[in-house]
């Protein structure tokens, strides 16, 4: 199974009975507030262009009302776009016939929901087999595969419980097992962890990261939590009022916030866990000094290693072990505590 990238191109969504009539006006600069006041239509998404990496985790972040849940529903077309295309493996999801779309949803996508959306009258096992059941997989086979995933998400022994008998975190594990049992290339997670306690949330993030290491699915993860986004995302897109404000890796966003809005967002972030050593290293002058630190290590880990080894100097090495830059403990600490602002970048 090879997962493909998802390309979202020029996607517009205008909610309302005659949304299509206003696309051109919106393209020419009609604002969200004006559209709502004058014409009674709500601008959901505006000119979204994102390419979601194949086999990676794409995080779409934004506050409520930013259009992030609307965007994820375009990927399996639970919502029809007003204009634009969503390409997967060269096919535009938005132009599929009803039958093709159903097959696409059955075999290519699986979804995890914020409020779990489990079937209350079915046990954990019966919920988990749902995707395979509607595909028409034989009962013995689907139960075998479901049990395997139930065990993988840590719910072995709960197969015959009903969702109401489980805690929120356990219910979402069922949601995840149900999605994984489908064995689809695309995993859509709509604020999947937002309803969980902080500790359980971190726990579930670890479950996802561990699974992703071997599964390499194309994951689209929606969240309003920047820490979650930075921890999970190979790539992050930040949405505001239905528009992409910035997209890039977590480090790019933290170091180069595109505007005031994102600056405010990233101010509280623990930069030591986001920024890599090669980002702040100084060019090598003369021989490499101190201990070697691998490229791609985050500052916090580097500082910990250096403190443990009682060293104030280090050098960064690439995959082949060649030194590529110099590092000092004071430089690391000053990068960890200095907030980046939009103005500082501009200056």
């Amino acid at each position: 199974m090879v997962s493909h990238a998802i390309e979202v191109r020029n996607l517009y969504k205008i909610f309302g009975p005659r949304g299509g009539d206003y696309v051109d006006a919106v393209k020419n600069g009609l604002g969200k507030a004006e559209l709502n006041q004058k014409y009674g239509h709500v601008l959901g998404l505006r000119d979204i262009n994102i390419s979601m990496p194949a086999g990676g985790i794409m995080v779409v972040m934004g506050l409520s009302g930013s259009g992030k849940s609307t965007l994820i529903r375009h990927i399996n077309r639970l919502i029809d776009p007003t204009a634009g295309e969503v390409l997967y493996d060269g096919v535009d999801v938005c132009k599929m016939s009803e039958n093709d779309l159903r097959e696409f949803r059955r075999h290519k996508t699986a979804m995890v929901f914020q409020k779990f959306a489990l079937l209350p009258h079915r046990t954990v096992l019966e919920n988990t087999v749902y995707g395979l059941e509607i595909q028409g997989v034989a009962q013995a086979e689907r139960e075998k595969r479901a049990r395997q995933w139930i065990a993988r998400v840590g719910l072995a022994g709960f197969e015959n419980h009903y969702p109401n008998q489980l805690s929120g975190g356990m219910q979402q594990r069922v949601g995840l097992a149900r999605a994984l049992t489908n064995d689809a290339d695309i995993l859509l997670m709509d604020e999947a962890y937002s309803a969980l306690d902080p500790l359980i949330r971190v726990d579930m993030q670890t479950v996802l990261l561990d699974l992703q290491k071997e599964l390499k699915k194309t994951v689209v993860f929606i969240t309003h939590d920047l820490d979650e986004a930075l921890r999970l995302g190979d790539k992050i897109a930040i949405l505001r009022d239905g528009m992409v404000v910035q997209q890039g890796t977590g480090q790019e966003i933290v170091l180069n916030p595109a505007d005031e809005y994102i600056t405010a967002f990233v101010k509280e972030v623990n930069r030591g866990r986001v920024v890599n050593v090669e980002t702040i290293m100084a060019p090598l002058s003369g021989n490499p000094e101190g201990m070697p630190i691998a490229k791609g290590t985050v500052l916090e880990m580097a500082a910990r290693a250096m403190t443990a080894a009682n060293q104030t100097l280090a050098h960064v090495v690439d995959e082949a072990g060649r030194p590529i830059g110099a590092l000092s403990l004071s430089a690391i600490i000053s990068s960890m505590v200095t907030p980046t602002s939009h103005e500082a970048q501009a200056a």
Partner: protein
Amino acid sequence: MAGLCELLPGFLCKFPAFSDASIRGARKVIDDGFKSLVRSYVNIIDAMVQPLQWFLNYLERLFVSSPWPIILIAMLAIVYFGSRNIKITVGTALSMFAIGLLGLWNDTMVTLAMVTVCTLIAVIVGIPIGILMARSDRVQSFVNPVLDVMQTMPSFVYLIPVVMIFGIGKVPGLIAVVIYAVPPMIRLTNLGIRLVDKEVLEAADAFGSSGWQKLRNVQMPLALPTIMAGINQTIMMSLAMVVVASMVGVGGLGKNVLQAINNQFFTVGFLNGFALVAIAIIFDRTSQAYGKRLQKHSEVIHG
């Protein structure tokens, strides 16, 4: 104010109705038209309702001519396995014994057969209509006023066309009862399906369910408590209506009540009335307990 009429033109005082002659003419045309229509299709209509007649007769004979212990045991078994409640089962046994001792056993069996058939037909007709209504707002806006008419029209009034079409007997009674009892079935099926959690439906969609799969796996099971309430209402309304239907020839307890009304037999009226109440309570408690048992999975809530 009465004096005011002398000063005003006549049509402001007395409502200007059509003349008696023209109303009479129109009435005659409609009545005669309807009668001749019925007369020309009488054979087809009879053939269509014949299966109902057979089914009803068969069930009635089965209930009346089987030895009473068998019926009683079967009844208690259904009540027990439906409700899993020993109190309801004992209550059923006691009330059936009381009915038997008062000499109302056969009449009760006739009524029971009637109510069973009526409920079955109401469910078979009602659930599909309810589903259609839930799937389409247009169907709903068309069916709702029809149901309003069916529920508010005095039942005696629609006995008239029913009798004109089907004559006097059990089948017209059955049809009248079904017309009266089916609206809650339709309404509550519709309501139950419309109340199904949107999130769960969205999940079913996201996994690629077809319309039928969604109906079977999600909508019907989640609407079941409401549908069960509809079945319960339908049974209660059938029981109420069998008394009225006795006016067009349905036998059983209703006929006794009708005779008691005509002859002012106070005791007979009340005994038969109480027998109906007893059956109603048995049906109601059993179907409610059964409905609750189906929802067992939602009872345990994790803290």
